[in-house]
């Protein structure tokens, strides 16, 4: 099998006493759209900057096309980046910004203009070529930044939270534009973000980082349904995490004693637990039914009073009181609940199937 386009091999970054990245391994294949996500300070931006050569790894090896690039200066690699600040050259016209990379590669003025104009047309900015950056709107600047990075036809494009400065509406539109662009071009995208929904919406694979370590790599679906650990389960949100103690096995499911009563969960794969072990259960909020129990299999049941109802467009989240400071979240499509009126304090019956739970070691 051919070597992936980009390989991070036990790459670490220390700043004096502080370690920003702890020996991470990551492979990115040609044409993939990988999102690296995590909370701020998790090392995701440092990782991206090491790929671009803006930071030198303290340990490990970065290979691009099978070649070690650790020692290459930023300008000796073809790893253009779309910056969080956009970093467009303010005293240059749109066209000159886009031409910059070609100029640095000593291409002729004619080729430069043709290629840059081609990209501006593609991004719907041809009419703005002569304008100054300051005369553009946020979304237009964003497109200029992408065109500037792609004009040299790189094999990989690095994106460092490029949409964080945009308002929500524009962000969603740019998300789909970027995703479409990536599909059309077939270029590898490595996209850093702290925003879970952004990563899930765009990437074919996500790597979740925390504390300088990669916690899990997988498709958005895998990560969402089978988080590798408690951090991932919490970070991707939309999950209920319940601590408990393993009590035994009734043949078709394991029994766990929790604050919500005894729950039944599928036996975990790949790791064995014995009675008395502390474990955590992940219950996806969108898999919980209310009112009537779903059919088939082992069913868990919870009676709790409603604290509040949160309405976000097509999705409604119900917060149920499960004692202490904790809430149990149930997520429903708005249309499923159209006929139901909720009042805070009212008792709600929640049901979910054993197989909709996922078992993690407690930590």
């Amino acid at each position, binding site marked *: 099998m051919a070597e992936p386009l980009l390989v991070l091999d036990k790459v670490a970054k220390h700043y004096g006493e502080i370690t920003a990245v702890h020996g991470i391994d990551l492979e990115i294949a040609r044409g993939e759209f990988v999102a690296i996500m995590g909370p701020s300070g998790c090392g995701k931006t440092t990782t991206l900057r090491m790929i*671009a*050569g*803006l930071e030198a790894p303290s340990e490990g090896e970065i290979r691009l096309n099978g070649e070690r690039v650790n020692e290459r*200066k*930023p*300008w000796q690699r*073809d*790893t*253009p*980046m779309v*910056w969080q*600040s956009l*970093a*467009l*050259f*303010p*005293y*240059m*016209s749109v066209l000159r910004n886009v031409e*910059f*990379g070609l*100029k*640095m*590669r000593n291409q002729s003025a004619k080729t430069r203009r043709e290629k840059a104009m081609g990209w501006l047309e593609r991004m719907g900015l041809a009419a703005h070529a002569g304008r*100054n*950056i*300051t005369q553009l709107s946020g979304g237009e600047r964003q497109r200029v930044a992408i065109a*500037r*990075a792609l004009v*040299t036809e790189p094999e990989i494009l690095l994106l460092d939270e490029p949409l964080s400065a945009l308002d929500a509406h524009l962000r969603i539109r740019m998300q789909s534009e970027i995703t479409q662009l990536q599909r059309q071009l077939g270029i590898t995208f490595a996209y850093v973000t702290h925003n879970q929904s952004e990563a899930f919406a765009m990437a074919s694979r996500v790597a979740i980082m925390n504390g300088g370590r990669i916690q899990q790599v997988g498709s958005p679906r895998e990560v969402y349904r089978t988080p590798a650990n408690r951090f991932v389960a919490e970070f991707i949100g939309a999950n209920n995490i319940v601590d408990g103690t393993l009590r035994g096995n009734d043949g078709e499911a394991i029994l766990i004693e929790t604050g919500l009563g005894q729950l039944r969960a599928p036996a975990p794969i790949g790791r064995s637990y014995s009675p008395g072990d502390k474990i955590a259960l992940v219950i996806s909020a969108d898999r919980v039914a209310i009112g009537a129990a779903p059919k088939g299999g082992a069913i868990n049941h919870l009676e709790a009073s409603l604290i509040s109802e949160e309405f976000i467009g097509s999705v409604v989240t119900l917060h149920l009181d499960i004692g202490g400071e904790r809430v149990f979240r149930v997520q429903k499509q708005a249309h499923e609940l159209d006929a139901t009126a909720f009042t805070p304090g009212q008792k709600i019956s929640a049901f979910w199937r054993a197989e909709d739970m996922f078992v993690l070691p407690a930590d």
Partner: protein
Amino acid sequence: MTVDRLIRRMLRAYVVIALGFVFVPIVISFIFSFNSDRFPTLPLGSFSTEWYEAIFSEGQVPVAFRTSLIVGGAVALLSTFIGFAAAYTDFRYRFFGKSVYMSLALLPPTIPVLILGLTMLMFLSRVSLVGEIHSVVIAHVVFCMPFAMALIRLRLSQMDPDLERAAWNLGASSWRAMLGVIVPFALPAILSALFLTAAVSFDEFMIAFFVGGVNETVPVRVLNMMQGQVSPRINAVGSLVFAISMTLVIVAQFLLMMRRPGRPMLRRT
């Protein structure tokens, strides 16, 4: 209400009087430089450019202008270059003792020029560099560089540090990024620094007096003329010096006011 108005009027009058004290002698000197009479008395005599002709026919004044021009030009170039380098160091690097380094670099203009002139004289004579045009240049660069550095540093502080990295990222080597990104961004401040340092050097008397030896710059020549005799030629030289200095300072100021990011300063092809 009326008290407010009264106070406002008094403040305005105060400003007018203060500016009057500064500018009236200059204006008077300017007027008398074109007066045909030998002594500055009223009523004025006829309009005449004889004093200007006199200073330029007298050998020493044109020589002094030439010296000032060489010194001012060299000082402007050198101190702007060094000032840029120092400002860039501040912008780009973090190192131990940087705050000490920066305050030392900004120190010279805060030292009384008399002290600076004397110590420069002692130092330059120790290393056998005294009494030449380049002695004045060296001493003036020490004095002027901080002005250039301060201007350029201010400009660079408005720059997104990612701009330089973005240039590297797009294939520009350190040098090309410097010339293609940093310098164009700092250009208004660099040009402004050129004019300002030229003006400071052109006006500076004390240091030039100490280290210049027989190489008189214009201010040194003016003082030597005054010591000899009071002549309307002083008015002519003074008016010229004022006009040149003001032009330099105004150009520097104008360039700096154009520093709003985003507006191209020079159209580059």
